């Protein structure tokens, strides 16, 4: 009896250990966030305050939504360089319609969302059906979206949008900002879709090995198209949140989101070769980036040095991830 008990305990300990190591493997970004948070808390008295934490989440919201789209695309084995300009273009259309043309704000937003889908779908079709490398196809769409945004806005910010949509980016339910609630809700849905639905699994399978996925009867072209379209949709949605939060659309909205979202995904443990990682990782990656940025402003780091620090942190974060994966393997 005794030996069995010992074994049981050992097994239990081993199990807990395994689960912990697995969690740490999947959510390394969470630990990175905690450590970074700790460091900043020591360095600035303002860091660990309710207001600042709220700020951080607020600042995450738009990027996190876009990054979720990028996460799906990365899981599918590609990445999308057009997302940032898609954010800008689609929200410019929404702002233009509701402000300049006086169209119903919700209708305008619907149009923007559809446009986002369309941009993504075009990427997907160019890639899947016309076999243009995704990097090139999405770069092309990036340029087209940029032009379109310039033309629509005439490079002049469209600001002071109808009050109906203010709550999206600036409203609260109790003490919780609505855009943060939306972000979290979207991630819950996204994580669920990626694990539990046929579409989600197709994304993983195609990303893990497109040919094998094809031979398992998965319509990989359709999967690519849908994933890119979803990416575009989420970019448009993120753009709307950003637009409401800033109460304006200017040409810089969504600037560099395509990079920041890829960086967030990689920090969040998604593999750039596809098929590996979790959608929710992108959220952790975004939080990491924003906390990092927040801390740098708080510590009054010379802006000239900030890029370099960001670059170094990016490399180190991924390096740690590589080492961890190696060890645990």
């Amino acid at each position, binding site marked *: 009896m005794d030996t069995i008990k010992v074994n049981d305990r050992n097994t239990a300990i081993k199990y807990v250990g395994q689960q912990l190591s697995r969690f740490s493997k999947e959510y390394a970004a969470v630990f990175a966030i905690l450590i970074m948070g700790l460091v900043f808390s020591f360095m*600035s008295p*303002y860091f660990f*305050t309710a*207001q*600042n934490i709220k*700020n951080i989440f*607020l*600042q995450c919201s*738009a990027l996190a939504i876009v990054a979720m789209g990028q996460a799906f695309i990365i899981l599918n084995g590609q990445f999308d360089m057009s997302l940032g300009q898609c954010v800008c273009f689609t929200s410019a259309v929404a702002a233009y319609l509701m402000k300049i043309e006086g169209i119903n704000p919700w209708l305008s937003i619907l149009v923007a969302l559809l446009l986002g889908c369309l941009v993504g779908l075009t990427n997907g079709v160019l890639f899947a059906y016309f076999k243009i490398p995704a990097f090139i196809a999405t770069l092309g769409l990036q340029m087209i979206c940029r032009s379109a945004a*310039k033309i629509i806005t005439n*490079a*002049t*910010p469209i*600001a*002071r949008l109808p009050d109906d949509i203010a709550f999206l*980016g*600036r409203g609260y339910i109790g003490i919780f900002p609505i855009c943060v609630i939306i972000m979290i809700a979207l991630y819950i849905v996204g994580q669920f879709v990626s694990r539990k639905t046929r579409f989600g699994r197709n994304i993983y399978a195609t990303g893990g090995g497109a040919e094998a996925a094809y031979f398992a009867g998965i319509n990989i072209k359709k999967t690519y198209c849908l994933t890119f379209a979803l990416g575009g949709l989420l970019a448009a949605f993120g753009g709307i949140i*950003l637009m409401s*939060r*800033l*109460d*304006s*659309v*200017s*040409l*810089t*909205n969504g*600037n*560099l989101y395509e990079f920041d979202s890829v960086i967030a995904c990689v920090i969040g443990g998604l593999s750039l070769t596809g098929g590996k990682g979790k959608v929710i990782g992108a959220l952790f990656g975004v939080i990491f980036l*924003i906390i990092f*940025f*927040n801390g740098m*402003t*708080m510590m*009054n780091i010379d*802006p*000239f040095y*900030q890029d370099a620090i960001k670059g170094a942190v990016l490399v180190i974060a991924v390096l740690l991830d590589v080492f961890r994966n190696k060890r645990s393997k």
Partner: protein
Amino acid sequence: GAKTEEEVTEKEGKKLKVGVALLYKGDEWLAAISDEYERQAAELGYEINVQDGNQDNEKQTQQIENFITQQYDVIIASAADAQGIIPAIQKAEEAGIPVVSTDTPIEYSYVSTCVAWDNYETGVKLGEYAKKYIEENYADKEKVNLVMINAPSYPHLVKRDEGFLSIINTIDKVEIIATQDANGSREVSANIINNNIAKGIDMVYGVVDNHAWGAVTALEEAGAEECAVLSCGGYGDEPFTALSENHKYYKALIVVPPVDVVRDSLAAAVKAVNGEELEDITNTSFGLADSSNVKDYMD
């Protein structure tokens, strides 16, 4: 000025904390502004935090939010998007932190003042110089070919173009043979001139100094006989020396001395902290430098 500043520092019993959300730092003039803030604040004994908004409204919003969390006493903002920044200003308002804008006026009542000059007027001034130049130097020409190298993606720079054109359009013999975007790049600007040089260029307008200098490079490369390059905003050794040496192509430049902008902005910020009423616009001086007067700007 000086007295009130001391009052503030003593009254609070601690250093005045100034947060500056700078539009951008990757350009010579704005970098000089940033350095000037650091220098003058150190002299005055303020704690200052200058952040680079990278011409991105979202980034500036985040910076202002972070300033608010850190309970800065006053925020100075030069906005990439004068309207898109308003939600951030509203947060400052809720937190009771006064805001002074520079560069571009922010149309929001809470903003104490805008320390600025009129971009449109700088264009007008350069346009007037161009008109005079044409009268004096190109009197015998039937047609004057003008190339405009601008940056239409930036609203404040577009204002300069508009001001310049308001004068140019009154001169019949000027023909604008190209209006192209160099987006701040000398190489692109040089290539634009390069690509149009065969048409014969008599005058180049560069909305920022890099555009003007890119043009100069291309003109030198092609060995152009004569051509006047006018810069609608610049600062520093390179243009000043060129003007003082009577450069073959580089003829005139609009200057807004950083020392003045920063001095006026900090003064306005202190006044705002003290709750003084301020004019909507605090005008800073700007001038046009050419070979005759450039010495005044050099030190």
